[in-house]
């Protein structure tokens, strides 16, 4: 009897321990550092990676990418394929079966109506939705029943997984956003700052451009997750101090996007309390060349495309753009700014492997003489002070980027190279929160691009780069009409490119697609609409005690935050 009691007691204790080990919120607070602070929690209204990642903790798509590039169903019950009948044989429709056990964090059930609504929300042309290109060629989105969504395309879609897939295209709650359709999208602050989601955490407090506090979602579909009770996403500071906080002082658990001199990073990592974790995606540090005139005297027409009637006075000439690109020594840039976490590239789409073009590799060789010859040919002659002049205009450029030590180093080096060409360069660096923010009233956002050239990194979401390549079509031109949220910030418009984009949308064969994407990449690069500089790994740092992270570049790096926990 006594023996039995002891057994029961031990079993009971074990059971208790078991539950306490796998309890929601058992690991307290998780500190994330994003040196570019989050400015909005609605990814449809911001192209900024930090905003997309910050909202990915709360909002979930139907499916996410896994680190190997495959799909993991999130709000969908399974990934539709041709084999399981989810994708029509002729590739013109896809049917998503949704999980039926998901509720929003306010307790209402998640249904197909929310998915349909999200589609309407983003496809409304007045909303200025940044993920609009995820919804290209969609004819209709219908709810067949409460848990089935049927998307019909106007053309056969070989890769129908763009709408509602990945952190850039999550599902919004219909009840919450019903009044935020179209032009009202931007004005819905309460919604955009505190979206109701289905994810492992809910927004408790959001201070734009500062701190976001999240709390475990009590209604999350997996009873024992997330392991953390709260998440604090701190913004601001700079990349180096974020790295230090995780790697040297242990104040935070995770730091994002450590664009820091590799010498400094290696030394911090040697402290041994955290480690760097990186993954190569499609991130390319690039310089965008402005195709429109941004003279302040133009007033409202400053930097507007106006159907090509507002060309840039200097950079509209291809020879000039080529010369600027030729003067850059990309190897030195990689050595100084990235070390092992970067490689030189001449492509704007450098990955996945099958899409990487090899037609542009000449750019790897710096050629100052050739560049000078090109500028001479273009009619730019050196004036008395060494700066080139043509028709009374000085060759003077304003070169802007976000505030970051590595970026300012790049600016200094590139300025020096361009000065060798007789180009006068004015540098400007803008706080990352403002630069990548979406405030239509700020003159300093990368969307407005009121400078001659600007530098930043961007990448494709997911492994299929179609949506990414579509960023440079004429319809994506950033301007007043879309509150400067268009992805074509440099306002480059080539009908040939648009034709390739249309063709890509209708091409099914993977090899043909690869050829088209390479052709698009080559067109962008050879027209020097962009100057790719460095193919970057995405580098983050994690504390040694933080377990369960799976860093990846195809989707939000916080994609599996529900599985993160505190180890010993």
């Amino acid at each position: 009897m006594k023996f039995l009691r002891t057994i029961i007691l031990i079993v009971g204790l074990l059971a208790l321990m078991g539950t306490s080990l796998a309890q929601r919120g058992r690991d307290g607070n998780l500190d994330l550092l994003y040196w570019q602070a989050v400015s909005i929690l609605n990814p449809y209204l911001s192209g900024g990676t930090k905003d997309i990642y910050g909202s990915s903790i709360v909002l979930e798509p139907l499916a996410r990418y896994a680190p190997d590039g495959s799909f993991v169903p999130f709000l969908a019950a399974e990934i539709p394929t041709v084999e399981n009948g989810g994708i029509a044989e002729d590739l013109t429709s896809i049917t998503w079966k949704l999980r039926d056990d998901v509720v929003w964090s306010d307790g209402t059930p998640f249904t197909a109506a929310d998915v349909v609504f999200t589609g309407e929300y983003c496809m409304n042309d007045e909303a200025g939705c940044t993920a609009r290109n995820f919804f290209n060629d969609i004819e209709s989105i219908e709810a067949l029943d409460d848990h089935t969504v049927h998307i019909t395309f106007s053309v056969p879609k070989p890769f129908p997984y763009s709408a509602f897939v990945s952190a850039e295209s999550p599902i919004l709650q219909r009840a919450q956003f019903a009044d935020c359709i179209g032009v009202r999208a931007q004005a819905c602050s309460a919604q955009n700052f505190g979206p109701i989601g289905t994810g492992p955490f809910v927004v408790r407090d959001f201070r734009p451009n500062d701190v976001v506090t999240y709390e475990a979602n009590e209604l999350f579909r997996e009873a024992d997750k997330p392991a953390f009770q709260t998440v604090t996403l701190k913004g601001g500071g700079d990349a180096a101090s974020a790295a230090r906080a995780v790697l040297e002082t242990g104040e935070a658990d995770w730091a994002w996007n450590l664009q820091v001199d590799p010498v400094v990073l290696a030394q911090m990592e040697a402290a041994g309390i955290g480690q760097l974790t990186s993954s190569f995606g499609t991130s390319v540090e690039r310089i965008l060349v402005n195709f429109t005139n941004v003279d302040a005297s133009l007033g409202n027409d400053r930097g507007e495309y106006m159907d090509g009637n507002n060309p840039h006075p200097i950079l509209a000439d291809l020879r000039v753009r080529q010369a600027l690109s030729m003067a850059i020594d990309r190897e030195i840039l990689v050595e100084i700014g990235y070390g092992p976490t970067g490689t030189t590239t001449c492509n704007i789409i450098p990955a996945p492997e099958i899409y990487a073009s090899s037609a542009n590799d000449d750019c790897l060789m710096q050629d100052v003489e050739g560049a000078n010859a090109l500028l001479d040919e273009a009619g730019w002659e050196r004036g008395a002070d060494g700066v080139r002049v043509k028709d009374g205009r000085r060759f003077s450029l304003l070169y802007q980027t976000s505030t970051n030590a590595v970026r300012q180093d790049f600016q200094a080096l590139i300025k020096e190279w361009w000065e060798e060409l007789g180009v006068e360069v004015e540098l400007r660096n803008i706080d990352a929160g403002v630069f990548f923010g979406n405030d239509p009233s700020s003159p300093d956002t990368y969307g407005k691009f009121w400078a001659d050239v600007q530098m930043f990194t961007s990448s494709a979401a997911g492994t299929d780069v179609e949506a990414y390549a579509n960023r440079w079509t004429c319809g994506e031109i950033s301007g007043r009409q879309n509150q400067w949220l268009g992805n074509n910030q440099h306002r480059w418009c080539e009908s040939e490119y648009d034709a390739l984009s249309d063709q890509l949308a209708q091409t099914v064969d993977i090899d043909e697609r690869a050829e088209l994407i390479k052709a698009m990449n080559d067109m962008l690069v050879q027209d020097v609409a962009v100057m790719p500089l460095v193919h970057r790994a995405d580098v983050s740092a994690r504390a040694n005690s933080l377990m369960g992270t799976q860093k990846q570049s195809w989707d939000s790096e916080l994609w599996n935050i529900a599985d993160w926990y505190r180890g010993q």
Partner: protein
Amino acid sequence: MSDIDLARPTESLQAPTSAATRKGAAEIWHQFSRHTGAVIGMIVFVTIVAVVLLGPYVYPVKASETNVRARNQGPSVERPFGTDNLGRDLLAQNLAGGRVSLAVGVSAMLISIVLGTIVGQVAGYFPRLDGPLMRLTDLFLALPILPLLLVIIMLFRDTLRSSFGPQTGIFLLIVTVIGITSWMNTARVVRGDVLALKEREFVTAADALGSGHGRIMWFHILPNVMSPILVSASLGMAGAIITESALSFLGLGFPSDVPTWGRLLFDGKDYLNITPMRVVWPGLFISLTVLSINFMGDGLRDALDPRLRGRE
């Protein structure tokens, strides 16, 4: 004008006539030179100014020239301060940075002192203007400086840039912005002193002799409030140098390729473990400059204080 004419016959009765002022200058210098700290401060400050201004002629290395093969080097005979992570010469950078920082510091300080003194004097002297002016001061003190700076810079950057060119435009903007956001403390201190002074007998005497308000304010009261003004000036210059570096950090100051002491310090902090001298030099320059100005201010205050003057 008639005020001054009326006042002329009475000048011999006042303390500072022009001849007396000249004698006063010698007196002040005498007093100042007895203040060891002030003299050392002055020597240090003059040395820094001379080095910064004349340095580039003696050491003709271009501050912005990079050399990627000689990065993060320690001090050597060739490069006395070493190089930064792009191989730029740190001595040349510190010299160039000093010129910008000192220019910003001095100009912004002058703007802030002039503004602060005028507002403080007027507010203290004219009771009717006291309320409005002091509320204005409170208003400026209560304004969150950073958003204000953002707005000012956003509004005027492009205009100034197109009319004065990028470098001068930004210099003017920064100096003005720092100046007009840092005059409040001077104004308050000056007003307080003026309030006390204007009740004193010598002011009443000057008034009785027919001196105008302007004359009383600038010739009778001002010399007596010089000490707090000078202390404000020394603090203000230090503050301006620091504010400038904060602005540069936010991307609102000078472009990143214009070295200033604040920026050099900021850029160097990540390399503290690798090339520690990179932060030590600009830090030392800032500290020495600020300290020497403070000591000079201290000495000047003692020398200018009429109550201390003439004491042995």
